[in-house]
C-alpha cells in the first residue's frame, strides 16, 4: 500500500519528463518516417553497368534501403533514452540535494530501501511506457505490409530495447553521482563517467549476448553502490 502510494508519487514527479521525451520521440520519429517514405521510390532503383565488378558493400541493407525504422529512428531513440535517464536521475537524486529536501523524502514511515526501490521502479516504468511503447509502435508500423519493401528484422526490435536500456545505465550513473557526497572535482562525477564508458562498450558489441553481458556488468557495478550510498547517506 505504502509502496504503491510512493510509486504513484514518484511517477507523478517523473510525468513531465516522461511526456516530454515521449512527445519528442513520437513527433520527430514520425517526421523522419514520413521523410523516408517519400524517398521509398528512390531506393527502389539500382544503378549498375552490365559486365562490371560490384563492391559487396553496396549490399549493405542500410545503403540502398528500404524503409527500415533503423536509420532515422535509432539515433533519436538513443538520444531520447539518454536524455530521459539524465532527467529522471536529476529529478530523483540531484534535485533533493540542491533544494535540501532529502529529509522530506527519507524521513517517512517506510524504510530507505523501499523509497529507493520506488524511485528505480518508477524510472523503469517511465522507460517502458515512454520510449518503449513508441518504439513498439514504430516497429509495428514498419512491419505492416506495404510500408517497408522488406519487413524489418526481429533483431532490430531487440536492439531498440538495448538502446532504451542504455538510458537506464545513464540513469544509474547519474543517480550515483547525485547521491555522492564527494566534491564535484573529485569522485562525484565518476558515476556518470562510468556509465558513459559502459554505454560506449554496449554499442560496440557485435552480438546480442555480449551486449547483455556488458549491461549486466555495468548495472552490477552501479546498483550496489547506489543502494549502499542511499542507505548510509547522512541527511
Amino acid at each position, binding site marked *: 500500500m505504502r509502496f504503491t502510494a510512493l510509486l504513484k508519487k514518484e511517477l507523478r514527479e517523473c510525468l513531465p519528463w516522461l511526456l516530454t521525451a515521449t512527445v519528442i520521440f513520437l513527433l520527430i520519429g514520425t517526421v523522419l518516417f514520413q521523410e523516408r517514405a517519400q524517398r521509398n521510390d528512390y531506393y*527502389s*532503383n*539500382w*544503378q*549498375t*553497368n*552490365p*559486365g*562490371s*565488378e*560490384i*563492391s*559487396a*558493400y*553496396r*549490399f*549493405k*541493407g*542500410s545503403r*540502398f534501403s*528500404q524503409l*527500415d525504422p*533503423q*536509420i532515422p529512428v*535509432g*539515433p533519436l*531513440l538513443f538520444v531520447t533514452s539518454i536524455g530521459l535517464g539524465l532527467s529522471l536521475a536529476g529529478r530523483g537524486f540531484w534535485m533533493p540535494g540542491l533544494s535540501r529536501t532529502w529529509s522530506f523524502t527519507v524521513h517517512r514511515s517506510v524504510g530507505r530501501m523501499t523509497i529507493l526501490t520506488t524511485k528505480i521502479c518508477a524510472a523503469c516504468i517511465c522507460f517502458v511506457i515512454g520510449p518503449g511503447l513508441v518504439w513498439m509502435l514504430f516497429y509495428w508500423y514498419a512491419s505492416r*505490409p*506495404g*510500408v*517497408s*519493401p*522488406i*519487413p524489418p*528484422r526481429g*533483431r*532490430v526490435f531487440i*536492439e531498440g530495447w538495448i*538502446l532504451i536500456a542504455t538510458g537506464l545505465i545513464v540513469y544509474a550513473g547519474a543517480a550515483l553521482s547525485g547521491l555522492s557526497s564527494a566534491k564535484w572535482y*573529485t*569522485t562525484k562525477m*565518476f558515476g556518470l*563517467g*562510468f556509465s558513459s*564508458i559502459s554505454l560506449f*562498450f*554496449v*554499442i*560496440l*558489441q*557485435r*552480438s*546480442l549476448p555480449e*551486449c547483455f553481458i556488458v549491461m549486466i556488468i555495468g548495472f*552490477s*557495478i*552501479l546498483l*550496489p*553502490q547506489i*543502494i549502499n550510498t542511499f542507505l548510509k547517506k547522512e541527511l
Partner: protein
Amino acid sequence: MEQNMISQNISKYFQATAKILMVFIVLITIVLILEGIIMGIIPTFFYPEDRDRFLAEPELTEIEQKQQQINKAQKHFLYDGTLHLVHEPEDRITHIDERKIEIYDKNYDPLWTGKRKDKPHSYLSWSRSPQGITSENLKDMQTVTPVFSDTLVIPVISEKSRIVQRWRYEHNKKYFTGYDSGGKLIGYLGPNGFSKSESQVEPFEELSYITAWTPKKTLSPVILWQTKNQLFQINFADHDCELLFDAQGRQIDRVMLNNWRQIGPEYSSNRPFIHLKTKNEKHFLLLRDPSRQIVLKIPQEWYQGIYIAARDRIFVKYQGTKGMPKRKDWKLWQEWFKENRNKAQEKWVELHEVDDAGNLTPVNRLDWTQPANRSQKRPEWKKYEKIQTITNKCATSFSPPLFGLVNKYFAEKGLYYDVHGRYRQRFRNLNIKMIMDILLFLHPAYRAANLSLTLIMMCLVFWHSWPRRTWYIRLIFWLVFVGLFNLAGFLTYMALNHTPIIRCSECGKKRSLERADCPQCGGLLAVPEKRSTDLIMA
C-alpha cells in the same frame, strides 16, 4: 540476526569491490586517453616540412643500374613462354591506354616503345584475388550501434533498373530470405538451392568471403559465396545456388579468379577459371568452357607468389625472393626482414606449363638481384622519429606494468599477427582486439622508468596508508594494486582512501578515524568529558 549480519557483510564487500572497479575503470580510461593524446600531439610540433623522408640515393654502378631497372620492370610472358620486361614510367595523369611503355627482352635490350594500347604483343594475364568483403566485415555490420546492425541485401534488378526482388542474408540462420517488390515472401535460398518452405532450406557454413559482379547480359548481381570448405556461385535472379567446389574438410585458404566473371575487355581471350588454395597447401583449378577440375601438383616447398593463367594451355607463374621465410613463421619472417631490409636480394620469376594431370613442366626463368637499398633518412626525419620514441617512452612510463607483462606474453605467442604476418590480431572478438591494441600501443616502452615510477607510487601509498591502516591485508592489497597499475592504481587509491587523520591523544602519533583504537598504541579515541547538563552522556 547472524544471517542478516553475514548478508550485510557480503553486500558491504560487494559494493566496496564495485566501487573500486568503477573508480579504477574511469581513472585508467582517463590516464590512457591522456597518454594517447600526448603521444599524438607532441611529435606533431616537430613534424618535418619536407615530406620526402630519404636523401637522394647514392650512385649505382652500371650493373646495379641494370639490375634496378630489371627489378622495377613488370615481368610479362608471351603465350610461347618468352619473357618480356615492360617498363612504364610513372604517370598518374594520362589514361592507362595512352601511357607510354617500353618493352625489353630478358637481358634488358630494348624491343619496342609506344603507347600501351598499340603494343604488338598479347601477354598472359594472371589470376588475382577479387575485391570483396570478409566474414569479419560482415560481423562488423552486426555491431549494435545507434543506427542498429546491418546485413546484406542482394537485389534482383529488372531491365529498367528497378528492384523487383530483395534477398536478405539472415545472419544467425545463415541462409537468404527473398521478398518481392511488394514485401511478400518469395522463399529461401541455401546451399541446397531454393525452397518455399523454411523447414527445407539448409544453412550455409561459416562465411569466409563474398565477391560480386554484374554479368554482361543482365543487371542482377551474381555473387561468389566462399565458406570455410565450400565455394558457391549464387544467381538470385534464377534462384540458383551452384556448388563450385567442396574442399571436404581441407578448408579453403584463398580464391583467385581469371575471367570467371567475364568483366572487362582485357580478359576476354582467357579461359575462365578459379584457382583455389586450401590450408594444407593444395592447389585446385576449376576451369570453364569446358568445365574441368585439375589438381595442380605444385611442390610443397613453394610458398611465395603463385599465379595461374589459362588459354588453350595452362601456365603457372612462381615468383619470389630467395631466403625469405614463410609468412606463417611470422617471427622468423620479421627477423629476416629486419636483417635483409637494406641488403641486396636475389629474386626470380619462373614459368611452368601444366598438363592435363596437373604436372608442371618448366618453360622459362629469370633471376636478378635487387640492389641493396643504400638510401638514408634525412636528419630532420631521424630527429622526428627520435622525438616520437622519447615521447612514447615518457608517456608510457605511467602505463601499468601489468600491460608490459601481458604484452610480452602476447608478442611471444604471436597473437598480434595473423597467419600472413600482417598486424591483425588472431582473436576475432572486438573487445579482446581493443584490449590488445591498447596493450600494443600503450604498454611501457621504457621499462626502467616505468618500474621506477611504480616504485615511487608504491612508496607514496605506503607512506599515506601507514597511519590510516586498519587491516594489513588491505594495505598489502593496495600496494599490490598500485604495483600492477602504476598511476591509475595510485589515483584509485587516493580517490578511495584519502581520509582525514588526527593525532592520537595518548601517543601523539598520526592515526585515522576508521578504527576505534590507535594502530600504534591501541589507545581509544578521546571521549568528551561528561557534564551535568549533558543529557546524552550523563
